[in-house]
């Protein structure tokens, strides 16, 4: 998903006796499924954790534009190009909704941006992998957006009002993303042998990084328990990953693609598909900055920010001048 390994602030769930009156009242509101709004009292740890989580989610949407942006000018048809452009534009929108939700917690947009650009805040590990052929656009839409949807749908019920509302908007737009990806895969798989091979190759490279998106197992993590008590995390990482595998295997079968894991098979006892764990040492390397595209992605974001500076400054200077002119015309008239 787009927010991984979020370190929950605090020391874990407090018992009602350990809580202050304010904390108890706050937890009671969450337990009653009330939404917490920005001006309401909230524990500092809840605020800090949400800033990290929503911020990282926003950064993922923004950086996530890069691997797909890579193919806009090389899409095979004008229609595919228009579709991809619309999809990437949606992701920019998702980033903006989420930044605004984070800002209601008292952090500024510039601070968030600076923390992304300096590498202090992370974005999803998945966007540090390259998109090497056109079929990757299919695999990304189908598998990456598909994995993101698994996490974003339950988050619509999250306890923080602005985050929940952003998720509702985002979820409305996501299913187009996944479907256009699957549509690309269908076309490729019904094409020539070579095109089908490209689709299989994209699947081979994307499968395990997509499973990593959910993060390592957190069923015993005190941090996750606290985040779940606050309802800013709804399911464990393993639950979501299993759901994703169960949904995806039949879709791959329909395409005639092989999942690059010979352990994937339906477990009659559990009713779920068994699968192999991804290589978590690779995941931690990518998180640390050593993935195939970490440097490229951060450089691209930094370049965009630096190159856009004159536009941001120029428009602001113009707006201030205009406002000053208006104010002085008003005084002159009085």
């Amino acid at each position, binding site marked *: 998903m787009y927010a991984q390994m979020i370190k929950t602030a605090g020391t874990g769930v407090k018992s009602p006796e350990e809580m202050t009156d304010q904390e108890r009242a706050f937890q009671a509101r969450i337990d009653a499924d009330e939404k917490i709004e920005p001006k309401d009292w909230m524990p500092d740890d809840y605020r800090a954790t949400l800033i990290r989580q929503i911020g990282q989610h926003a950064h993922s949407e923004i950086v996530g534009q890069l691997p797909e942006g890579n193919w806009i000018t090389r899409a095979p048809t004008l229609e595919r190009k228009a579709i991809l452009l619309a999809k990437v534009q949606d992701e920019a929108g998702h980033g*903006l909704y989420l930044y605004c939700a984070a800002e209601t917690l008292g952090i500024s947009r*510039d601070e968030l941006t600076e923390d992304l650009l300096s590498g202090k805040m992370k974005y999803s590990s998945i966007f540090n992998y390259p998109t090497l052929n056109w079929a990757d656009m299919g695999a990304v839409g189908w598998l990456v957006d598909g994995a993101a949807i698994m996490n974003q749908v339950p988050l619509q019920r999250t306890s923080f009002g602005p985050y929940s509302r952003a998720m509702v908007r985002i979820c409305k*737009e996501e299913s187009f993303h996944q479907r256009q990806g699957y549509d690309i895969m269908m076309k490729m798989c019904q094409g020539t042998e070579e095109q089908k091979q490209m689709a299989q190759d994209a699947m081979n490279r994307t499968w395990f990084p997509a499973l990593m998106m959910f993060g390592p197992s957190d069923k015993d993590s005190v941090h996750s328990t606290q985040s779940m008590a606050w309802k800013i995390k709804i399911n464990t990482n393993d639950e979501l990953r299993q759901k994703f595998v169960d949904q995806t295997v039949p879709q791959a079968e329909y395409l005639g693609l092989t999942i690059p894991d010979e352990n994937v098979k339906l477990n009659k006892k559990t009713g779920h598909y068994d699968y192999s764990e991804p290589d978590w040492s690779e995941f931690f390397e990518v998180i640390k900055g050593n993935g195939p595209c970490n440097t490229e992605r951060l450089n691209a974001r930094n370049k965009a920010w630096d190159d856009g500076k004159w536009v941001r400054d120029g*428009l602001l200077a113009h*707006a201030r001048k205009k406002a000053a002119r208006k104010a002085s015309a008003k005084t002159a008239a009085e």
Partner: protein
Amino acid sequence: MKNEWPLWEVFIRGQHGMSHRHVGSLHAPDAEMAIKNARDVYTRRNEGVSIWVVEAAHIAASSPSDKGPLYEPSNSKVYRHPTFFDIPEDVGAM
């Protein structure tokens, strides 16, 4: 001076004769750009026919601690609701 573009709250009227509804916020240098950005960020799938933008700093809001004093009184004034009055069925629809 801080060089961040100010924050604007965006209100959009959908197509069904509804009032403008708050949909989110965005940063823009001035009102004109805020409306242009709002069109791109909040109406990509014809969600609306009219956009209002208001600089967030100009919005005055009630505070959560006012909840009691501000809204409590009306709860005791149940006669403000039509269901307070029993009108005999013979009178017909009212």
